[in-house]
């Protein structure tokens, strides 16, 4: 067990170092923070609402992550394949799943860091009024989970192809589908199947439904299960894909 954790940590460290040794990480962080700030204060009408809460901030996350998370994660496996370091990685004395988890955790932590760096907005809202900090904390937690879910999807698409652009586009599409699965255009598409149960199921798969609860200050067990199952399934599939590539 300890060996496993040790391996995972080693991989994670390696990944994180590689992130920060290129300007990519910094550029990503700057863009993430700029966009968050811009959307919260300009488009989100933070002041116009007159409400001491971070609704104007969290409301954009599903959409910001839609593009930024695949951008951060697309290189995870594609890069290894392109550079040819994949074989090197997988012949090391570590189980493939440890490598998968290690890389995922590194990226997730990186996204967590990006989220953390938005703390000025928290300070601002507490300075201007007295918001419900429990709700805000819950929102951050939910946002982190949501980022993890998108990231897992990106891991999966990144393992599928050598080409980072394809990985990016496919993961954006899948994430978009997850967001919109509760929306009329998608539900109407499913209407043709004439099975209301499927349509309701699709609605309950929407990221928005689950993130909404976190934004309101509620940690629902079913939302934890949702995000957990998405991450678990995608990481498993990543393993399967890598295995297939290795065999072939």
């Amino acid at each position: 067990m300890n060996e496993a954790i040790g391996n995972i940590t080693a991989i994670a460290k390696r990944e994180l170092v590689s992130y920060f040794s290129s300007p990519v990480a910094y550029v990503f962080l700057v863009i993430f923070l700029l966009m968050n700030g811009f959307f919260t204060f300009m488009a989100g009408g933070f002041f116009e609402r007159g409400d001491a809460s971070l609704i104007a901030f969290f409301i954009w996350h599903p959409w910001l992550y839609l593009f930024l998370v695949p951008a951060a994660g697309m290189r995870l496996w594609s890069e290894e394949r392109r550079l040819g370091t994949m074989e090197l990685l997988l012949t090391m004395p570590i189980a493939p799943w440890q490598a998968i988890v290690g890389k995922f955790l590194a990226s997730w932590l990186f996204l967590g860091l990006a989220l953390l760096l938005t703390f000025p907005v928290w300070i601002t809202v507490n300075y201007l009024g007295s918001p419900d900090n429990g709700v805000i904390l819950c929102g951050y937690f939910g946002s982190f989970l949501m980022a993890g879910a998108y990231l897992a999807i990106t891991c999966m698409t990144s393992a599928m192809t050598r080409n980072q652009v394809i990985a990016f586009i496919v993961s954006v599409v899948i994430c978009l589908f997850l967001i919109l699965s509760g929306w009329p255009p998608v539900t109407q598409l499913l209407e043709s199947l004439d099975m209301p149960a499927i349509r309701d199921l699709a609605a309950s798969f929407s990221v928005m439904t689950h993130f909404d609860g976190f934004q309101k200050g509620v940690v629902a067990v079913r939302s934890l299960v949702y995000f957990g199952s998405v991450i678990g399934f995608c990481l498993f599939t990543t393993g399967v894909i890598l295995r297939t590539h290795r065999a072939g």
Partner: protein
Amino acid sequence: MKNQKQLETVLYSSVGVIILLVIAIALNLIFSRVSTRVDLTADRIYTLSEGTRAVLGKLDTPVQLRFYFSQGASDLDVGLRTYAQRVEDLLNEYRIYSKGRIEVKKLDPKPDSDAEDSATLDGIEGQMAQLGGDKIYFGIAISCLDAKAAIPFISPQRERLLEYDLTRAISQVAKPVKPNLGIMSGLPVFGEMNPMMMMRGGGRQEPWIFVSELKADFNVKEVPVSTDKIDDDINLLLVVYPKGISEAAQYAIDQFVLRGGKLVAFLDPLSVFDSGNNPGNPLQAAAGSGASMDKLLKAWGLEFDINKVVSDKQFLTELQDPRTGRPQPNPSFLSLSQAAMDTNDVATTQLGRILLPFAGHFTGSPVEGLKQSVLFHSSKDSQLTDKMMAQFGATEEFKPSGTEHKLGVRLTGKFKTAFPDGKPGADAKEEDKKEGDEKKADAAGHLKESKDEGIVVLIGDADMLHQNFFARVQEIFGQRIMMPFAANLTFVQNLVEQMGGDKDLIGIRSRATLSRPFTRVREMQAKAELSYESKIRQLEKDLSDAQQRLNDLQRAKGEGQQAILSEEQKQEILQFQRKRAEVNKELKEVRKNLRRDVDSLETTAKWTNILAMPLAVSLAGIVIATFKRKRTAAQ
């Protein structure tokens, strides 16, 4: 060996993926039924309040909740769908806490289905989201045996009060006995025969509208002001303007409160409906007006000054001046907005504005054993005006007191009698006051203190109850149609429902989801307004003075000459126009300055938030890069 490898290959192939996908979906399906959640909100707004849990705990007959929701509707708003999920979660919590007494049924009233018929029978209305679209049902019907109550459409705007609405409905159906409401009034709220009016062919005055409205939910009984006992079957007593109330009547009220009755008293320093003994002489009438219950208030630790009216510059009302027809602000006619109210009390939450003409205030602090909560109060920009001056609109000298005067308070706790010596005037000759008599007094049922928690609500104005101050009433085909412009009646109804029903309902706090404003911004705005207010007033005064001079000139001229402008007038007009332009420009400047501080705060906050961290990160990146380059540079 090979078999194991084959198994692994299969497991980790597309088959395995599909299997895991199915498992993941199944897991989500299973857990969608599970409504366990952790409520991290500061006000625990997603957890059932104590009051609800108490009501549920007391249920002894099964109650059925039928939740109608058109979840199959294709054009359903996503926000509504998410809200519906929260409602369902809430209903589930009710079921869990009721220990099996509550059954929840979820129905989808599709067109021409049994569910739809059931919805109609239950009084659940379907709403059309779009023209020509399907009807969307989103309501709850509550029934217990043959008593029914319903929330016809669960409005998302009323999310905060959903728990209250539900618990109240459950409480109503579980005990469907209409409570008795007594009204003791020094004003003719029940209508009266006015002999003077009869001469003019008028005759009977109609009862006040609030009485008719209350009759819909309660058995309303009239209690005479001269009574010495409140009937035992009355649970809730409304005392309105008890002018000159006798000690005997105060004793009756005292005992009523001690035996568990709930009291709402509307006191008033000045009532416009009190014609007193001198209907023709308003001055004398005003001097003699005012109603309070001093013995009772004193025992509770409070005082009510019937000679002073609260004037407020922030919560004033603009009334039409009968002479000029222009709106004149009257600070003694209070228009209270949400800012003046306790937003956590169910009676005052989500109310619009309340109109209080000539209201008095409460001072003092409650005696031991009693807790006071302020239902509404004036702003700090208020002062106490002598009631005579207030009635005749003389408020030239306004000095803000800096105190938020209490206009409406609620007292809860264990009350003690205000009459420790027993019933007043009970044939007490000094010689008779011996031990034997004391026992007799107690034996006669004199309560010294209340057994359970008692509740008394005191409001500093009685006129607010009259429809003139909250609605426009029209007579159409003999029916009085009421169009409210203020929330006075809503407040009274909230209060009475809250108190006449279960005591536990009062504890259900209103879920303060939305009442978190930017307090710092508000403070800055208020400060700015205060400092500029005097300037604005001065400028406006200059303007009206100039206007006045013009009018005087016009009047000073003879009758026939008013069409022709004299030289003086021409000069005056020119001056006036110049002055007006000047004043308007200055006013605009002042108003711009009012927002200046707030705007600069907003701008600073905006740009700091957007740029600060990105700059910091860029800097960090550059520093690290330079550092690394130095390190790896050829030595």
